[in-house]
């Protein structure tokens, strides 16, 4: 009996040990790397990161914890995206850490216990008159029924008072036609009288989006009364973090009016112009946030200058060809870095002039300090910050600025846009929700410490293998460093990987960052202009030399995020932040007043530089719509506006495709395999975001209708051998290549046998000698079929393909000055290698 008991006990022990080991194996343990890249030591700085979780592993956020140096630290988790089984696919982590300047630290994510609370958690108190957020003796009050947006108290004393009016819109006055004589000519001009200052209404809604204890976010929404047919609104997301005496705000000014898109008429065919709304672009003179300061005799300083008699203003702009030297025929290389200009004035007196200001104003008084800063101040010119006695004004659209600028060139060909520029006035185009981030710091920290979290927020990244293994990211990719064993192929794969580093390396002359320092002659539809990298309508986009802004053609946002995922380099997130902001604010169409089939889509890649749009009868279509980057941005950041944009865009895509499928327009996107591929990727991304099968069904519908139709008529490469039609290169061959990875993704997610058949046939038949870069994409196709159809011999073909089309370089430029399509081609090149590496990685795993 004893022996039996001993055996039983030992067996039970072994069993428990086994289960314990298994439990350890399946338990979550993820290292998250945080890098400080602003050269500023951080103390209690917020780290925000989306963390993917394997399917079925985590169903309850409550057990997730974060350790730093082996010690549990306060953290806050929320669910971003679910798996289809209800488990958590992506969780959003908010925690706070100390990190040395330029240092790196590793956090451990576990699911074994509970987080400790912060020493000074953020608390929210919701009352009838408003919402109060508080921590560390600092509180922010958001009034429900009053204007003024917010008030702040530090240690019980009002530091941001209700003296300020809040969001103030400076409107234009009455329109009148003026006639002037110029020689023999009588010129008629529209002039505007002095406008009004209209204060934004108290909030229509206040919503607590995050309630702490590490981070609290309150969203405030309201309107501007009696302006622009009620189509102008605002949203502010106000953030407080535990222990911090600063408030961060992202403020959107939203024009919900129509962009004014229309279908062009054709009198010869008896076709009339069709539009549902005129251009509802909002014309205004300026917009500021006016805050009252509860300080005694405050004195502001900025760029080394101090206020005189309580007045100081820094105004940032960029002058068109500041000294006129660059304005020569067909060489309008204006808006170069030297054309930036900030002017600091005290009252009417100019006291300093320089190139670029970071837009940080430090206000000191005997009884307290305020550091105010607008993120990407000079990049989003025109901007200003002003101290006016007891008032602090954050000018998101200072009255000195203008957009669009007046052209020095003829724009008569398209008067609808040509007539827009008005001296000293702005247009906020229809469907644009433009945001600005700013911080108000009331602590006694240094200025650099105060703004570091605004300009260089901290992110945490898991190891690339973890990201890839989790399969939570809706893309087929592998960790970096996956090679084939063939020397030539591997050296070319390494060069491909290095392109990602090049893209964000400011020292590399062929990086995107170096590209931003160039302005080049552009001609879009015969209109001469310059490229614009900066300005509030342009920053974050990618204008290519010779072209206007491209709306991040081929989804540079997604590319940057893949770089972040695979390398953990925060430089990619910096770029993604810029691009994500632009994509969401500017390129995403927020208005519901244009045609239903295009509401919700994004701007296309062809735009006049000066107007950030093309002729309005070139309406947004699904062909250029990239949802995948926006979804990934949301998953990585948990950005609420990104989520709104994703949902809106996905529904827009669904509507647009429904319209296409019903109307089958001539040469419409139904025949464009790249368009189908992008949308398939977008739908797969929505499946990852929502966990809903319906999005995969939408993707399969596209495959079963459009793709299969082309397959039947033109074979598995989905294009005819002859790609020239009436002197135009149809590029169906290129479009097929661009769709391959997306078809493979859909097959992986659905296991649909028809998709596999198409891909198999494509890998078996010789590819026509059309697109010269095709082997880059065929490498991915062959690698995928090698694993999906268990044909390892195809990996050799994949390797040969990659060798054929990859350049003989160790470093491949991403942006080539003067080259009007290089960055476009390279964006696809950068997307292409993932599928090959995925195939190599999976085949290696299978062997192991």
């Amino acid at each position, binding site marked *: 009996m004893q022996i039996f008991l001993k055996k039983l006990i030992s067996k039970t022990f072994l069993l428990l040990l086994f289960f314990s080991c298994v439990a350890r194996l399946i338990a979550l343990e993820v290292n998250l790397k945080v890098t400080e890249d602003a050269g500023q030591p951080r103390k209690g700085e917020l780290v925000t990161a989306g963390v993917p979780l394997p399917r079925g592993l985590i169903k309850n956020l409550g057990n997730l914890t974060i350790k730093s140096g082996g010690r549990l630290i306060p953290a806050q988790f929320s669910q971003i995206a679910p798996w289809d089984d209800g488990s958590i696919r992506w969780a959003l982590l908010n925690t706070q850490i100390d990190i040395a300047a330029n240092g790196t630290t590793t956090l451990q994510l576990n699911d074994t216990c509970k987080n400790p609370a912060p020493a000074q958690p953020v608390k929210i108190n919701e009352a009838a008159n408003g919402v109060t957020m508080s921590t560390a003796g600092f509180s922010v009050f958001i009034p429900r029924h009053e204007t003024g947006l917010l008030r702040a108290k530090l240690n019980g004393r009002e530091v941001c008072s209700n003296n300020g009016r809040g969001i103030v819109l400076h409107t234009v006055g009455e329109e009148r036609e003026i006639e002037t004589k110029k020689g023999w000519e009588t010129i008629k001009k529209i002039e505007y009288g002095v406008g009004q200052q209209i204060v934004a209404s108290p909030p229509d809604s206040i919503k607590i989006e995050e309630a702490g204890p590490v981070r609290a976010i309150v969203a405030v929404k309201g309107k501007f009364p009696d302006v622009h047919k009620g189509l102008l609104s605002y949203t502010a997301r106000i953030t407080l973090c535990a222990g911090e005496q600063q408030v961060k705000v992202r403020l959107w000014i939203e024009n919900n009016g129509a962009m004014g898109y229309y279908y062009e008429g054709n009198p010869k065919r008896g076709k009339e112009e069709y539009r549902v709304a005129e251009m509802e672009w909002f014309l205004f003179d300026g917009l500021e946030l006016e805050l009252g300061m509860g300080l005694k005799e405050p004195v502001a300083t900025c760029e080394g200058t101090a206020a005189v008699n309580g007045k100081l203003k820094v105004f940032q702009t960029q002058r068109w060809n500041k000294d006129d030297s660059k304005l020569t*025929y*067909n060489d309008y290389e204006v808006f170069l870095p030297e054309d930036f200009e900030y002017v600091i004035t005290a009252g009417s007196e100019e006291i300093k002039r320089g190139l670029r200001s970071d837009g940080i104003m430090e206000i000191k008084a005997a009884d307290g300090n305020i550091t105010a800063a607008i993120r990407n101040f000079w990049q989003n010119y025109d901007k200003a910050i002003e101290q006016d006695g007891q008032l602090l004004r954050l000018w998101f659209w200072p009255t000195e600025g203008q957009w669009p600028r007046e052209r020095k060139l003829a724009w008569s060909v398209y008067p609808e846009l040509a007539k827009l520029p008005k001296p000293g006035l702005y247009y906020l185009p229809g469907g644009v929700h433009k945001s600005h981030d700013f911080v108000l710091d009331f602590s006694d920290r240094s200025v650099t410490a105060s703004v570091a979290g605004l300009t260089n927020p901290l992110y945490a990244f898991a190891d690339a293998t973890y990201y890839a293994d989790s399969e939570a990211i809706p893309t087929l990719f592998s960790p970096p460093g996956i090679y084939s064993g063939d020397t030539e192929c591997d050296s070319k794969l390494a060069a491909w990987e290095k392109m990602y580093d090049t893209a964000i390396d400011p020292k590399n*002359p*062929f990086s995107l960052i170096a590209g931003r320092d160039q302005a*080049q*002659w*552009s*001609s*879009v539809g*015969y209109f001469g202009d310059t490229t614009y990298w900066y300005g509030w309508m342009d920053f974050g986009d990618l204008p290519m*030399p*010779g*072209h206007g802004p491209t709306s991040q053609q081929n989804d540079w946002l997604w590319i940057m995020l893949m770089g972040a995922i695979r390398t953990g380099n925060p430089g990619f997130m910096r770029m993604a932040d810029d691009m994500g902001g632009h994509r969401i604010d500017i390129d995403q169409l927020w208005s519901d007043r244009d045609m239903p089939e295009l509401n919700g889509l994004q701007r296309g890649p062809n735009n006049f530089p000066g107007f950030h749009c093309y002729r309005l009868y070139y309406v947004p279509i699904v062909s250029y719509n990239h949802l995948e980057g926006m979804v990934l941005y949301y998953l990585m950041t948990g950005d609420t506006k990104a989520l709104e944009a994703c949902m809106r865009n996905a529904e827009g895509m669904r509507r647009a495709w429904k319209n296409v499928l019903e109307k089958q327009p001539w040469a419409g996107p139904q025949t464009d395999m790249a368009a189908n591929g992008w949308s398939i990727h977008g739908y797969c991304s929505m499946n990852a975001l929502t966990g809903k099968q319906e999005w995969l069904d939408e993707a399969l519908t596209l495959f079963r209708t459009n793709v299969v139709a082309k397959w039947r008529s033109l074979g598995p490469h989905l294009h005819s*051998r002859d*790609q*020239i039609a009436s*002197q*135009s*290169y149809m*590029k169906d*061959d290129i479009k097929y290549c661009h769709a391959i990875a997306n078809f493979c993704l859909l097959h992986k997610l659905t296991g649909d046998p028809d998709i596999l058949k198409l891909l198999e046939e494509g890998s078996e038949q010789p590819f026509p*000698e*059309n*697109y*010269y*870069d095709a082997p880059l994409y065929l490498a991915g196709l062959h690698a995928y079929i090698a694993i999906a159809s268990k044909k390892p011999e195809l990996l050799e073909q994949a390797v040969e393909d990659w*060798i*054929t*089309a*990859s*350049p*003989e*370089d*160790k*470093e*491949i*430029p991403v942006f*080539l*000055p*003067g*080259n*009007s*399509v*290089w960055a476009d*081609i390279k964006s696809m090149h950068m997307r292409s290698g993932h599928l090959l590496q995925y195939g190599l990685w999976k085949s290696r795993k299978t062997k192991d």
Partner: protein
Amino acid sequence: MGKKDIIAAIAMVFCLAIFDIIYASTLQLHVADKLTYVSPDTWQPPENAPAELRIAGLRNGCHAGQLVVSSPEPIEGLKTEVSSLKGPQTIPSSAWDLRYGLPDTSGKEKIFDGLEIFPPAAIVVGNKNKLAVQNIWLRLRVPVNAKPGNYKGEVVVTVNGEKAVMPIAVKVHDWVLPAPRDWSSRFDAIQSPETVAMAYDVEPWSDSHLALLDKTFELLGELGQKTLFITVIRRTHFGNEHAMVRWVRDEQGVLQPDFEIVEKYLNVATKHLGKVPGVVFYSWEPIESMGHAEGTGAAHRTTDRAMQYTLFEPEKGTLAKRTGPAWGTDASKEMWGRFNKGIKPVLAKFGLEESKLFGLIGDARPTKIAMDDICSGDDNPRWAVHSHHYCDEWQGYKIGYAIALWGINLDICDPNIGLGFGWNTDFWLSYYPRELKMFSDLTEFRYKMEMWNGGVSLHEMKYKGNSRYSCGLGRIGGDFWKVVKDQRGNLRSTLAGVYPETYWGQLNLNLCISSILAQGAKSAIPTVRSEAFREGSQDAEVRIFIEKAVEQLNWREKLGEELSTRLREQINDRIRFVNLRGGTKINDQMKPPKVSDPLESSDALYTAAAEVAAKLGVMQIEKGGGDLYFLIKAREQKK
């Protein structure tokens, strides 16, 4: 019946027999206008055809005439014999080159175009004209030492014992036409070695291939060909799967250029063309080649396709398609540096160091970065442009050779309004005659070269007192025949623009003349079009000789004012004649010429050249450096 009756009866029988013979003969031989296509389906015997074949010629010239043999019955066993020419001396029959038209069905109607050495074995009766028709082309190479004067001879055509005879009259003028390689006009036909290899199904760069290229260049040499194109990259507009410059990895794995094929090509080409002024190393293509450059080049068409090169793997004996280093990288500069260093002695071997040009800039244009790379290690790089709009400089690099369409901005006008002197320009600017189609009127083929040698910018003359000129024609396909097959094995297209990114839009060779030569049974052959071009270029040289004498002050002085003035008037009339036939129309400003017959016009021109030569005692005049008489006068009038 007396003796007289018997004689009369015999005579009657004889006459009847003769009558029978005459009226039973079905074979007919006619002189045909050599500037008119002959269609085997529709050609009919002309009512007033000349009774003899008349040719006006120059010493060292090559002049042609066209005959048409026809019969209501199918023709088999056609034979042609041309006699020697009797006159001040005897020009042997070996001076004749006989050719037979090959029917071409690619145009609107079937016409004789290619000129084959061998007569067809059988000629069938056409459905429409109910005749078996064959043209015969007689090319006379007048010996350089031929005595001037009138010559007589005949051509005899025999079919199954039936004969037809045509007398020939040749007038040789006393002026020596320079050899085509020394012609002042610049003719730029693009030769396609890949097409030749595919058309005759021979191994590229084998001895058989080179032998075929030898024949091609012999014919292009007769046309005054002044350029050669050597592909450094693959997938150019010329549809080359592989480049002529190949790259081999050395022991360190570094890519080194292999010029073996380049040398073979230069060897066979220069044998016939001499030291051509333009050897274009085709090193660059854009990503998209459609559209046309606006003004000085549209910024959005400034693109560089990744370098596509050919890797030769000696151990395998195979060629592989590869992509070169990205533009702007050290690897790219180094690779191109090795190319430029390596090609230098190759060019020197053929005396072509000064002819090197990089290409080919089109309507889409290279970035400075790519041009910098390509020119690495070249001390004096120059580029070639074929574009709607040309430029004389791009991204800071000199253009050594430019071809433009309407962007050339030169006027073809009446000589009373303006005169152009294509021979008097230092900048190699040629006109791209896109309005010429494969089977445009032969008169246009004949006179286009001479016409554009007289192009002038009236705007520049008005405001600057001088003008740019064009010195030739270019971007004409030499031998881009249909060799690309469709899935059913039918010939569907030429190699030009076969790769979609290098289609070159409206500058696609297929939109103009894809082949000035035809694909013969055994090698390339001339065409009635190339013959027209060749004779037109000959005539242009005659005019240039006279103009040099009339316009260059030192020679004008020797000619004397009276003769110079008369010659100027005569050339002006020739200009009107040429302009009308070259494609312009009579309008308010364009006067009709006094001489309207092509033979008469050429004859008058040759006579004038002989007169100038006799007066000056020279057969050739070099381009002088001084001002031209016309320009001096024009400026005086303006003052």
